[in-house]
């Protein structure tokens, strides 16, 4: 990869910081690293506006932070076993929410963009969501050939869940799809697959 290159479409993430100008807050976090990000957020302060924390524990694969988190945010915490369940609750919340709701998300890229797409359905632009990438650098990959999105790409080359092609994981990101572009790696030289390395741990 060349040095000093930057791709415009690639999202830039920050760390969660409370937005002072608000009507209400909702914080969505995933896994133990997300739980920790929520704990750090409450170390900054306890906001005066109505606040909800949606915590997807993902307990099978991750260390569970339910107990410390419920000590820090006793009244605002909702816990879920999986991210899918927390997204259902998020949508229910959005459908009755008012303008001025600030949205915070900490988790994998897949989770961040699932949240962004949900907010988009309710007219909120992803640039107005405070996003922190934690836990894993695994990328969601959109296969430009069969249009399937495969999740959890940890390597530079990954087999498409849809068509089985070996995809080269690019840095080009689509906000609409919430995924990086994946291009068949051996299109010109079938069978010639460069070495596969983990670069998104």
């Amino acid at each position: 990869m060349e040095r000093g290159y930057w791709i415009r479409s690639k999202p830039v993430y920050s760390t969660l910081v409370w937005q002072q100008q608000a009507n209400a807050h909702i914080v969505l976090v995933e896994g133990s690293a997300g739980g920790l990000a929520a704990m750090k957020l409450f170390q900054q302060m306890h906001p005066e506006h109505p606040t909800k924390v949606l915590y997807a524990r993902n307990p099978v694969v991750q260390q569970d932070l339910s107990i410390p988190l419920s000590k820090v945010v006793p009244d605002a915490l909702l816990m879920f076993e999986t991210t899918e369940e927390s997204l259902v609750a998020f949508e229910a919340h959005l459908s009755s929410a008012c303008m001025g709701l600030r949205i915070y998300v900490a988790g994998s890229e897949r989770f961040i963009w699932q949240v962004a797409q949900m907010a988009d359905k309710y007219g909120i632009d992803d640039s107005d969501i405070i996003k922190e990438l934690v836990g894993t650098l695994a990328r969601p990959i959109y296969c430009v050939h069969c249009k399937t999105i495969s999740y959890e790409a940890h390597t530079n080359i990954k087999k498409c869940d849809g068509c089985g092609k070996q995809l080269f994981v690019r840095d080009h990101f689509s906000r609409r799809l919430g995924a990086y572009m994946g291009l068949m790696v051996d299109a010109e030289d079938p069978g010639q697959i460069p070495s596969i390395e983990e670069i998104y741990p």
Partner: protein
Amino acid sequence: MSTFKVVVSNIQQITPLIKQFSFIREDGASLPPFSGGSHVVVAMNINGRLHRNPYSLMGSPQAPDTYHIAVRLQEHSRGGSAYLHHEVKVGSQLEITYPNNLFALDKRARKHLLVAGGIGITPFMSQIEDLIRTKANYELHYAYRSQDHAAFTSTLKEKCDERIRVYVESEGLSIDLKALLSKQPLGTHVYVCGPNAMVVALIETARSLGWPENHIHSEQFLAPPSGEPFKVKLAKSNIEVHVPAEMSMLEAIEAAGVDAPYSCRGGACGRCELEVIRTDGVLVHQDHYLSEADKAAGKKIMPCVSRAKCHSLEINL
């Protein structure tokens, strides 16, 4: 800016201070369609001096056979509104620019919240047509001083049904911005047009409640304020123009026969921006287009409303 000639086909007294003017094209051709919130600039030759004032187009934007503008007679008119009110008759000829929209509805909005104060109702008159036609979700909140100032209220009540609320100040009613803005569903966009104090209060209230910047839309054309006279040196044309106290810099440049870009002529759109080469005084920025940092840097000026307190100013034109 390209313009075309129109003839005044109808004049209606809407309130004691507001007149509505209707235009048709002089050559009989059809008028260009426009989108809700658009304005045109009307050129008027007043005692040998060219005045150009922006006015919002009202009525149906789809296939207009007539353009309508509403003009409030300003107390301290620089001539434009007084000229239209007193001199222009049915049959008078005027020149207008093609419509331009600086106050468009955002298509992504799930709900449109329109807030008007006084004559600020005019851009909403065409937006409402678009909203009704597209069956969009909207609400109109319209405040004015007294029944004497109730422009278009009955038309609007008919069109908007239960979607309009009026606030008559003389009856002790005013818009509670905080209450209004804190209970809007997610995905709402707010649009405000009216007196400066109202526009500023709305923007600040929305921000303080956490509304994202791109959900807040405002329109306010300033009238060019008068000031002290000064000289402008046009570097490229290599001429010097005198800017009298009661003329804007843009008007003075135009009067000298130099074409300068413009669109809103009210300090809102950014189209007229000129580069300042140097000055022996200070710039007096009056626009609401340039950022505070730009204003402080003193390298740019919007000649439609801004001036300089100086002896001479050199610009790159």
